[in-house]
């Protein structure tokens, strides 16, 4: 979407009908609108927002009092805003009226100049171009006003990212599916006479809810852990950059001990895993030791006593009888004495199959007997190594504690404060780690229990066809829920890296190497100085953070414009409308931002007053990006008195932005003539 013009009529400070034609050129894409504070910048921004979505920004005071005072005095009842814009090569006119006449219409401008009203829903059409939940980021009424700073100095941008990714509709669908599922479960109860299935479904539902709660808590804990780790890293960097030789030596000792501790901890984990392997491999040897000995004695004894008569092979005896011939060639006829004698041997002859089995059993039993001492040796060795690793860990932990105590005894308030902070963070990390382990175990345990009930539910027979249908419906809804949830999680993960890259790129352009932004996996950001110290998110730095963030969001929305996902709302290309973006910005960084901002967006509309030596308009002009300039002139019916007249200087021409002794109070929009 590229805005061509806005026409306001009797909207707040604007009496009558007034128009601004925006710079819509690809190169000269920037429009600057100058206005004194309180004269109408926020009104204009809100006129655009209201025309698009019928909503105002949070900074718009008295939203029920929009009709211009003079218009009201002259008995006008309605106010109107018209936007002309281009999207995908087509021209549109959007008109919204408020007050007595409430109207919202959209027209398409045809090639011949005629306009045709679009009959489809105007709101759906506008939302397909610039979704309502994204509009607030494009039309921004303050520096970082939407960014909520948490206690730890981090700003959660997760909601904003989800808005830009178009999560809202998909999340609302999940809410609705949950409602429908509950209805179906209630229905199912009526058809499940023995209540067997509904009892199981209720239990499954309880596990579902418990798993969802545990997952939310796990996610919070993981995020918290990440924040603590970033904070710890920052504190350690500050401790490491101390100018004291004693501190340096202690920190160096601690780093060494810390490294050794990590190695020992990793070794212990590996040894514990090895222990499990050894037990798996050798436990049967230990348990079977006595049995093995007895069995071998029995086999050997049996052989010695000749219970199994080895000299006569059963198969050989059978063959002689079948062929009626001895191996010496003599004929063995049935009924003869020789035949009968040989036949008697069948009962005594050894079965080669049985012998073979016995030999195998003997061989296995002998192996067990041989393994026993080896097993003992290896298990004992493992136990010894585990004891040693534990002892090393204990010693290293003691050393680390001693280092910490020595740091806390130093005569340096700042170092002591940092060390105390470090201790607190370390403890918090340990606690959070434990909590994460507990939650992970709980989730796994509940998933297993849920699966048991699900299996039982599947096996239940004898349900009526209607109940079976309801059960299938629940299963289908759950599959859809999983599909939508997976898509959302995947998109959020993808955007994390993209956001981190964009922030890095913007930092490089805006701030050189002065600051860095820490970003957690659950999309919380924090501005840090060169030493990793968090910068209080207020004043100029907050403005910088806001710029970086908004620019990143808009870049993400732009990339997602042609998204083919069926679940997420596509992104948008829209003008970036900023109210007083440079006001709080340090003069050191303002020209950098003014240079880069027009390059980041397709169209830029900046509402501001004088740039107070920040070289904003000069930079935008010298970069060849300035397309149009307007200013608001406040006409006042009263006398000037002692009040100072404010002037602006355009190309050497001085123009007043306040006029006294005018027929009525109003704000007049005036265009600045561009050179050339």
């Amino acid at each position, binding site marked *: 979407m590229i805005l061509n013009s806005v026409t306001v009529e009797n909207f707040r400070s604007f009496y009558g009908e007034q128009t601004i034609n925006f710079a819509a050129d690809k190169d000269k894409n920037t429009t600057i609108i100058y206005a004194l504070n309180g004269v109408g910048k926020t009104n204009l921004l809100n006129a655009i927002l209201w025309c698009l979505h019928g909503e105002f920004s949070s900074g718009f005071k008295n939203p029920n009092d929009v009709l211009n005072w003079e218009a009201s005095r002259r008995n006008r009842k309605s106010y109107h805003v018209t936007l002309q814009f281009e999207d995908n090569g087509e021209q549109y006119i959007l008109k919204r009226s408020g007050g007595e006449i409430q109207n919202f219409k959209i027209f398409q401008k045809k090639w011949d100049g005629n306009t045709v009203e679009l009959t489809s*829903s105007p709101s*759906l059409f506008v939302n397909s171009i610039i979704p309502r939940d994204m509009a607030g980021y494009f039309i921004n009424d303050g520096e970082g006003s939407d960014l909520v700073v948490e206690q730890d100095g981090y700003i959660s941008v997760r909601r904003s990212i989800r808005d830009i990714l178009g999560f809202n*509709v998909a999340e609302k669908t999940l809410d609705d599916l949950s409602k*429908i599922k509950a209805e179906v479960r209630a229905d199912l109860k009526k058809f499940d006479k023995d209540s067997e299935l509904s009892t199981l479904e209720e239990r499954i539902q309880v596990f579902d809810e418990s798993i969802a709660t545990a997952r939310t808590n796990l996610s919070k804990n993981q995020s918290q852990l990440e924040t603590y780790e970033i904070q710890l890293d920052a504190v350690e960097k500050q401790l490491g950059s101390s100018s004291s030789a004693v501190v340096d030596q202690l920190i160096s000792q601690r780093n060494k001990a810390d490294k050794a501790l990590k190695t020992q901890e990793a070794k212990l984990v590996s040894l514990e895993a090895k222990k499990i392997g050894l037990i798996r491999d050798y436990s049967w040897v230990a348990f079977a030791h006595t049995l093995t000995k007895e069995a071998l004695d029995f086999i050997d004894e049996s052989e010695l006593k000749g219970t199994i008569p080895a000299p006569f092979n059963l198969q050989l005896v059978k063959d002689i009888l079948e062929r009626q011939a001895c191996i010496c060639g003599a004929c063995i006829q049935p009924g003869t004495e020789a035949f009968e004698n040989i036949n008697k041997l069948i009962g005594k002859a050894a079965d080669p199959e049985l012998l073979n089995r016995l030999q195998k059993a003997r061989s296995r039993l002998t192996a067990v007997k041989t393994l026993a001492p080896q097993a003992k040796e290896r298990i004992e060795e493992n136990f010894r190594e585990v004891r040693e690793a534990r002892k090393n860990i204990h010693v290293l932990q003691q050393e680390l504690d001693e280092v910490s105590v020595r740091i806390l005894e130093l005569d340096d308030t700042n170092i002591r404060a940092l060390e105390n902070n470090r201790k607190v963070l370390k403890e918090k990390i340990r606690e959070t780690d434990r909590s994460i382990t507990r939650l992970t175990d709980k989730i796994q345990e509940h998933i297993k229990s849920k699966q048991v009930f699900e299996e039982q539910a599947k096996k239940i027979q004898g349900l009526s066809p209607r109940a079976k249908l309801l059960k299938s419906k629940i299963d289908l809804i759950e599959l859809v829920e999983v599909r939508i949830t997976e898509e959302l999680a995947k998109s959020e993960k993808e955007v994390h890296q993209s956001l981190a890259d964009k922030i890095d790129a913007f930092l490089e352009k805006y701030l050189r190497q002065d600051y860095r932004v820490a970003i957690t996996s659950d999309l919380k950001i924090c501005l840090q100085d060169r030493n990793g110290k968090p910068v209080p998110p207020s004043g100029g730095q907050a403005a910088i953070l806001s710029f970086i963030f908004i620019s990143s969001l808009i870049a993400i929305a732009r990339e997602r414009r042609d998204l083919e996902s*069926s679940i997420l709302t596509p992104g948008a290309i829209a003008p970036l409308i900023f109210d007083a973006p440079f006001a709080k910005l340090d003069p050191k960084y303002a020209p950098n931002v003014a240079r880069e901002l027009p390059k980041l967006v397709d169209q830029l509309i900046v509402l501001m007053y004088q740039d107070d030596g920040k070289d904003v308009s000069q930079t935008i002009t010298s970069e060849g990006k300035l397309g149009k300039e307007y200013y608001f002139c406040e006409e006042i019916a009263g006398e000037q008195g002692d009040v100072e007249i404010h002037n602006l200087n355009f190309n050497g021409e001085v123009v007043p932005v306040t006029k006294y002794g005018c027929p009525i109070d109003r704000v007049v929009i005036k265009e600045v003539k561009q050179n050339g």
Partner: protein
Amino acid sequence: MTDEMNVSVDRLARDLVQIERKSFYGSEPERDRLRKMRELIDEAVKEIASDS
């Protein structure tokens, strides 16, 4: 899950989100939303049952 089932779940997810989108962005009345979603789920269940 079979390929056919996968396709059905994908289509149902997309269509349900589409219904929600129309209501969310104000082109359709809020009250029709759940009714339409229920109908769509009913149809999908019947379709899957008849396929199997």
